[in-house]
């Protein structure tokens, strides 16, 4: 079903929350009035370019900057030595911190410019500051670096090999950490007693976020006030400010970080990279504004990739088809250094979701992180959760096959039952709410599943191979509460902060510490605040993404904004309403307990004529001529909302594909998505998030993957070689939703930003495996290009002694 959007003017104030209104941010974006970081032009602005490594792994022998320095238009060329010299500004660490720790974590130094060794191609060696961007780039090319090339490692399994070249002196065997979750012994027992097991060996490939706007920063230092303002492509300005203050050694209160319009992030703009800190430093150094905008090649070399797992896993079943155990052993690629939140991704964001939607009595997960010569790996849309969901859903597909059950029946049999919520898994989390059968049933109806199976059968007889694949995913959003996050290793709280300010005229500005970059927070937050305060939607302005304006914040990632940021706004708005109530009671000469608040009107219970509007109360609060004694004037409230728990969106995605075993080509015939993201603030925006998420999931399944050669040289370093899906690559998506509100937050919302990306890959891989069942193909690693599909068919065909599908005695997948 496609949601029709509405003009906000046609929506009653009382209905604003939950309406699919058009986005208020669109006019600026549609007229060219938006301001992205690279749009910023300042007087006397200089441009920075970064000299990066020619090799994935090398020792630096010499850096000769003389030729670059002598070039016309070049204002300076700096190496690590210059940064740390006493003669230059800032006394920072000039090393990037890791904000998530694990007991076994090997915290290796990550200098913002390499001085002895380069460990991936994106490692900066020097920066050039010049009059314009062309000159800066030319001069960067003129810096002469002498290297001694070292052997490189790309995959974790290579990094762990006995004779592998070591990246960091302190990280023996290139091990970044060794982590486990669940109960190893109990799980071993479960496997020992099981009647059936199925296993898989898979790679979850490295992906590059490819936000359409490359990373960029403009820094402006004011020597008069010692204030340093940085406008940059960020998903979390406050976090960046805190981290950057330490990196460059400029006090947090003299540093401001602002996110102008940001052209997509998908995780890649969460992390603190070297470049933005270098721009800030160069601005102090030159006492002038400095801009840096990554070229697309630079984004490929430096943006933190995501995923990168090599996994062996098994599932165990009893005779009745009940899952009795799940065991996972993963080697996770961390890249050359530990990026900002990297250690959390393959551990707490992955291991905790290994139960999927299923009631599994014994689970054990073991993850070993590897240092390799790819860029530091960190969160990319989904972050850990897609890897978990992919694995669980692939195992469930194989498990069903192993016990000879229809994959739908097998899933339904093993779903966490509706009456078991809140449900505590074997991997340390408690699911808030769910009705897992509902989206599944809805998806089956959309697919007309029974009929499809018959059609599949008929088609096979005619030599056409159709397959259906399911993905019953679970996602965890809004990691919380902060105390728990702290116990797990977070070096930050995971609350969200907001300020709701009524103006004397009755209009409102709402500030929130999240930082949208395409999600439409300006619209959805205004819907939330208008609803709470009972004021017109158009009277609410939303401000995000500026440390100078917003008290504090944690940012936008992990599908947390609605659940945590939105809830914080509700809390602030409720405080405003409460204060307003006392003012109204005072003015209406009633007891505050007798004041009712509805649709923006305060009235005395039982005497509705005695009433005051929110706007009048705001006016009174600022006039302060007649407010309760000892009450402070003004009407605004700040809150820090720390959720009680994660929220767990879920749903079922299903794909129908046709696979041509002769050419290896895959055609997605239908894609059905039924998502339960709790209450929806704006269904049109929810739909958009689902669409975009699915497209990235389809990209992973069929097209995308960062590839490096043996020397850790990126082979997919352009949009030509890294296949970001085009319009023709993405199927028409049929979306529906069910609504199971989360009991954990006042809005009952769960989160939607990552759902599609988490769900899609395994729906497609399962469908392809289903289509190729007659050929005995169980698994094909992503991206499933025609060649890999063809090879898989051939490999099995040869093993079976013929290129024809296996005969009737091999269980034909469609027979159920």
């Amino acid at each position, binding site marked *: 079903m496609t949601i029709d959007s509405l003009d906000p003017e046609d929506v009653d104030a009382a209905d604003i929350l939950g309406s699919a209104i058009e986005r208020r941010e669109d006019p600026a974006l549609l*007229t060219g009035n938006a301001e992205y970081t690279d749009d910023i032009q300042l007087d006397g602005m200089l441009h920075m370019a970064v000299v990066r490594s020619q090799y994935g792994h090398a020792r630096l022998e010499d850096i000769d900057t003389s030729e670059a320095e002598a070039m016309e238009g070049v204002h300076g060329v700096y190496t690590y030595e210059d940064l740390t010299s006493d003669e230059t500004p800032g006394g920072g660490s000039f090393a990037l911190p890791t904000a998530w720790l694990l007991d076994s974590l090997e915290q290796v130094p990550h200098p913002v410019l390499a001085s002895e060794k380069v460990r991936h191609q994106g490692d900066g060696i020097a920066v050039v500051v010049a009059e314009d961007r062309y000159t800066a780039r030319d001069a960067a090319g003129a810096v002469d670096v002498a290297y001694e090339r070292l052997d490189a490692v790309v995959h974790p399994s290579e990094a762990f090999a006995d004779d592998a070249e070591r990246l960091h002196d302190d990280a023996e065997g290139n091990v970044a950490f060794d982590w486990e979750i669940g109960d190893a012994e109990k799980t071993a027992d479960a496997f020992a007693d099981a009647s059936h097991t199925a296993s898989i060996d898979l790679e979850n490939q490295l992906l590059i976020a490819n936000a359409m706007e490359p990373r960029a920063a403009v820094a402006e230092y004011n020597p008069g006030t010692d204030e340093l303002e940085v406008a940059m492509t960020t998903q979390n300005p406050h976090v960046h400010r805190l981290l950057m203050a330490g990196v460059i050694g400029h006090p947090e209160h003299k540093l401001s970080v602002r996110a102008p319009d940001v052209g997509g992030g998908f995780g890649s703009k969460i992390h603190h990279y070297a470049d933005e800190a270098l721009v800030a430093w160069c601005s102090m150094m030159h006492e002038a504004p400095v801009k840096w905008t990554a070229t697309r090649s630079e984004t490929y070399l430096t943006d933190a990739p995501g995923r990168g797992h090599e996994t062996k896993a098994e599932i165990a079943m009893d005779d009745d088809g009940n899952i009795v155990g799940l065991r996972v052993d993963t080697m996770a690629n961390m890249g050359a250094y530990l990026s900002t939140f990297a250690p959390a991704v393959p551990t707490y964001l992955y291991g905790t979701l290994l139960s999927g939607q299923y009631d599994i009595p014994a689970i054990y997960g073991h993850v070993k992180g590897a240092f390799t010569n790819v860029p530091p790996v960190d969160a990319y849309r989904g972050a850990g959760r897609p890897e978990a969901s992919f694995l669980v859903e692939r195992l469930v597909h194989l498990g069903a096959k192993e016990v000879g059950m229809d994959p739908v029946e097998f899933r339904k049999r093993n779903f966490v039952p509706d009456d078991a919520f809140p449900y505590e898994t074997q991997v340390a989390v408690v699911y808030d709410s769910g009705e897992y059968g509902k989206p599944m049933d809805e998806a089956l109806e959309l697919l007309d599943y029974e009929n499809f199976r018959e059609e599949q059968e008929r088609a096979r007889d005619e030599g056409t191979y159709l397959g259906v694949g399911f993905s019953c995913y679970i996602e965890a959003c809004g990691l919380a509460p902060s105390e728990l996050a702290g116990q797990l290793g977070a070096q930050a709280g995971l609350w969200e902060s907001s300020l709701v300010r009524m103006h004397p005229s009755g209009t409102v500005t709402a500030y929130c510490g999240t930082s949208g970059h395409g999600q439409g927070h300006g619209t959805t937050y205004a819907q939330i605040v208008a609803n709470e305060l009972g004021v017109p939607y158009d009277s609410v302005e939303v401000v995000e993404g500026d440390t100078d304006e917003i008290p504090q914040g944690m940012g936008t990632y992990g599908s947390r904004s609605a659940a945590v940021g939105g809830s914080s706004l509700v809390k602030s708005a409720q405080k405003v309403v409460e204060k307003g109530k006392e003012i109204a009671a005072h003015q209406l000469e009633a007891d505050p307990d007798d004041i009712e608040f509805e649709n923006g009107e305060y009235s005395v219970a039982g005497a509705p004529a005695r009433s005051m509007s929110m706007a009048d109360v705001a006016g009174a609060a600022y006039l302060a001529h007649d407010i309760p004694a000892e009450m402070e004037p003004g009407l605004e409230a700040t809150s820090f909302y720390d959720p009680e728990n994660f929220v767990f969106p879920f749903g079922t995605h299903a794909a129908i594909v046709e696979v041509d075993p002769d050419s290896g080509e895959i055609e997605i015939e239908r894609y059905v998505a039924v998502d339960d993201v709790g209450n929806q603030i704006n269904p049109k925006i929810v739909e958009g998030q689902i669409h975009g998420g*699915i497209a990235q999931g389809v990209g992973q399944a069929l097209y995308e993957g960062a590839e490096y050669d043996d020397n850790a040289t990126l082979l997919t370093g352009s949009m*030509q070689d890294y296949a970001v899906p*085009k319009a023709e690559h993405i199927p028409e998506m049929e979306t529906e939703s069910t609504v199971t509100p989360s009991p954990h937050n006042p809005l009952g919302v769960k989160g939607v930003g990552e759902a599609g990306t988490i769900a899609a890959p395994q729906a497609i891989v399962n469908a392809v495996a289903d289509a190729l069942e007659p050929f005995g193909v169980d698994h094909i690693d992503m991206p499933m290009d025609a060649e890999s599909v063809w090879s898989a068919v051939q490999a099995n065909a040869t093993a079976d002694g013929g290129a024809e599908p296996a005969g009737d005695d091999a269980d034909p997948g469609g027979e159920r």
Partner: protein
Amino acid sequence: MTEHDITLTVNGAEHDLTVEARTLLVHALRDELGYTGTNVGCESSLCGACTVRMDGEAVKSCTALAVQADGAEIRTVEDLGTRHDFHPIQEGFQEEHGLQCGYCTPGMMMTALDILEENPDPTREEIREGLEGNLCRCTGYQNIVNAVQNAAKEMQPAAVADGGESDDDPTPATDGGEEL
């Protein structure tokens, strides 16, 4: 570096400027003339974010050198319509939620205009094909296709002439799951 004096007519306004031989048209537009509505996504003619109309045709302005555009008429997103008076293509994107971060959008709209000029009533497949050179990482394209169809309907002279008025539905062609 040799410099050249060139003249660009951008959105009807004539500009004389001096550029280096290697200056890309997109940088001349953005950095020299301040038309920052046109975005740069790849600088290698692969993403389409920088698409403008040059002498009536959609062109990736990172592919052209500014000197090559000397004397040309350029139309950028800034010339489409204002927030109070949207061009139908802008209206289509707004109504169909055809944009999220908006970074690809100016280029998408410029290409869409090209598609509609050649084919006022394109099918969904034709639109997808026509958008081949424009990447969007946010939307999954479905709502972009809806947006272009929405605009097509709005822009068709026939629709107005032969009683398109009676069709009050402000959001046509929203049936994303169907082929049209």
